[in-house]
């Protein structure tokens, strides 16, 4: 499974290229529409080509990500996938209650995080040491909130609430509690 940083880098490049292109087109249009010249009626055919382009663009984004972002498929089918490891976590009074002090994971493992809230709506996100996000989900009370993730490289992650739960929620950070190691470093059970 590719790392989410790679996906974000791809998105950054694509969106930056798009913004440069659209701003250039608008700047050109602003100049051209004020320049002396023949006023021309745009042909309906061009309009319909544009409509077709938008349809293709709108649909192809999701098709493209379905084939290139691996966690999308895993997320929709997580009920049918057997997890290598499962962590049951609960949240109450703006505090995560973890099954152990550190959550130890082997590289390559598919891990299921089951998170339950006993009071408010919270978030559950894993963050790298440089504060960038690995993934997140919402934690809604009264429902099972589960997410499956395959860890592709070693690392240390913090758990942080990604949803506002009142001013008390800003301290909802469990620093460096998720440790992903190479399999040979697996501690004895």
């Amino acid at each position, binding site marked *: 499974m590719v790392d989410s940083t790679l996906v974000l880098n791809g998105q950054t490049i694509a969106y930056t290229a798009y913004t440069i292109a659209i701003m250039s087109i608008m700047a050109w249009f602003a100049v051209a529409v*004020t320049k002396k010249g023949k006023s021309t009626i745009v042909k309906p055919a061009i309009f319909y080509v544009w409509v077709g382009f938008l349809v293709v663009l709108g649909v192809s984004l999701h098709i493209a990500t379905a084939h290139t972002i691996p966690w999308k498929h895993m997320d929709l089918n997580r009920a049918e996938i057997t997890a290598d490891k499962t962590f049951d976590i609960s949240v109450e009074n703006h505090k995560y209650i973890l099954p152990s002090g550190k959550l130890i994971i082997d590289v390559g493992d598919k891990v299921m995080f089951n998170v339950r809230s006993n009071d*408010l*709506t919270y978030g559950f996100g894993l963050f790298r040491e440089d504060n960038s996000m690995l993934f997140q989900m919402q934690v809604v*009370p009264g*429902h099972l909130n589960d997410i499956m993730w395959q860890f592709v490289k070693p690392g240390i992650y913090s758990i942080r609430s990604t949803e506002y739960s009142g001013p008390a929620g800003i301290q909802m950070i469990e620093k460096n509690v998720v440790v992903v190691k190479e399999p040979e470093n697996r501690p004895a059970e």
Partner: protein
Amino acid sequence: MSFINTLMNGEGGTFKPDSQTSLQKIALRMVIFGLIFYLMTAVEGMIMRIYQIEPISQIEPKQFFAIMTAHPLVGIFGSTYNIVFGAFLFLVPFLMKKPIWSIKLANWTFLLITIGTFIFWTAGFISHYAPLYTLYWPLPADFEQFSVVGGTIFILGIAILMVGAVFFVINIFKTIMYTPEGWEKQPSRSLLASALGVSGVENIFKRKNKRKEHLVSLPVAAIARGTVDVALNSGIILFTGVLILVYMVAAILGYDLKESAIDALLYKNWFWWGLDLVADGLVLIFVAGTWYLLATLITGKQLFMQNIARAALLLELVVSWTVWSHHLMSDQAQPGFLKVFSGEMVTAFELITQGLAFFIVLATLWSARPLKMTNPLKFLLGGLLGFALAVPAGIMQADLGLNRILHNTQWIIGPHVHVAILIGLSMTLYSAIYILLPILTNGGKWYSNKLANIHFWGHLIGGIGMGAFMGMAGLKGMLRRTIYFEGEYNLYMILAGICGALLLISFLVFFVNIVMTVGINGALGIFKKSKLDTREALPA
């Protein structure tokens, strides 16, 4: 003319409030208060920008989140609702050449929106009630974190505002449908069918020679269709407000109602369905309708592909009822079907409907070249650019794969929300203000084109820049709705802060321009009763 004279009497003394109809005065009152609320929103935004660079010691986190709660509500309801409703209460009678149904109700719309906004803002400021605009259950009823009395007043303020919105809805539809005194009987049902697009849909299945003519113009149809979403949204927010009030009143009376009686996910679906009628409904429909009106006013030509534009507005209305699930893509208990169908697929239609409107406006402008680069035209182009930037940013977020790593980051609130509102929506509204002010003031002249240019460039660069730097921080993992105490994203936040300051300065420049245009006496005159006994838009 001296500076003081212009300040008191407006540019060239051309604006005479005594010549205004009641409707012109109401529209301008709503614009003025809309701009005052915009200023409050901008100042709040600037405080939050500074706070994200370095938390201000005099402002506690709970005050910060109270600001964060008030900021979008004052911006959307206090500012945008006032400006848009004021403009549309004037434009529907103006475009239909028909008196408004009720001046009194229009005045009540203005008063209730304005008073309601002041009430909830003050309650939030004093009591720090801060469940954010999303009100995720059971946070609004969490009385361990929030004052129950403050919250009650806050919710009452919102409810008062929504009643004002309901009055707007009634007035708009009644104006479209009613028969004014002394007029030939109006075909109410046909007018309504034309405004809502029913007759347009019927036409698709009829032969060319049997097709009905459109009874209302395209901008009026756009206003009517957006107003449907205003009605539905007001209903949802009022109902939700009553629900929260039940818990609050019970708490005040000493009863502790079980919060688990409300299913948090069902509530979230319900509330987002209502909220999205604003964000992905009436805003997009009203904006597209305003673009069409502006394009025809600027060019004096018919709109390119008029019938398609009409159909797209109807499609947009239907789309707005079915896209809410893109806000729940990170909610794992949300059914996968809703995530894919409503969240991804239907949401992609917004790219199509907004893309159509974008093309139609550009093609209409192109058909009239060479055009003079007037203030309305440049702000209209800015508005088009804003949505061209913001809609794709939102479509990317509304993808199951990307949402997993973008949800609740600064990406969504920067390049999508703020660019859509500040550049797309606000610049469209500014374009409308620049073109409508002379009509609303019966020939008032703008004070300074130089100031208008500073306003344009400051707003454009500030808005896009702020959105971009927030987005860059979001891609690096910076969340929205939280506070960073260690300066983790300082580089991006300082740059976003500079752009935010540019936005605020450009607004102040615009404010000076508008004050110098109407003058202090003129501004005060707007709030005096009209001497003309008419419900018409313009004086005879």
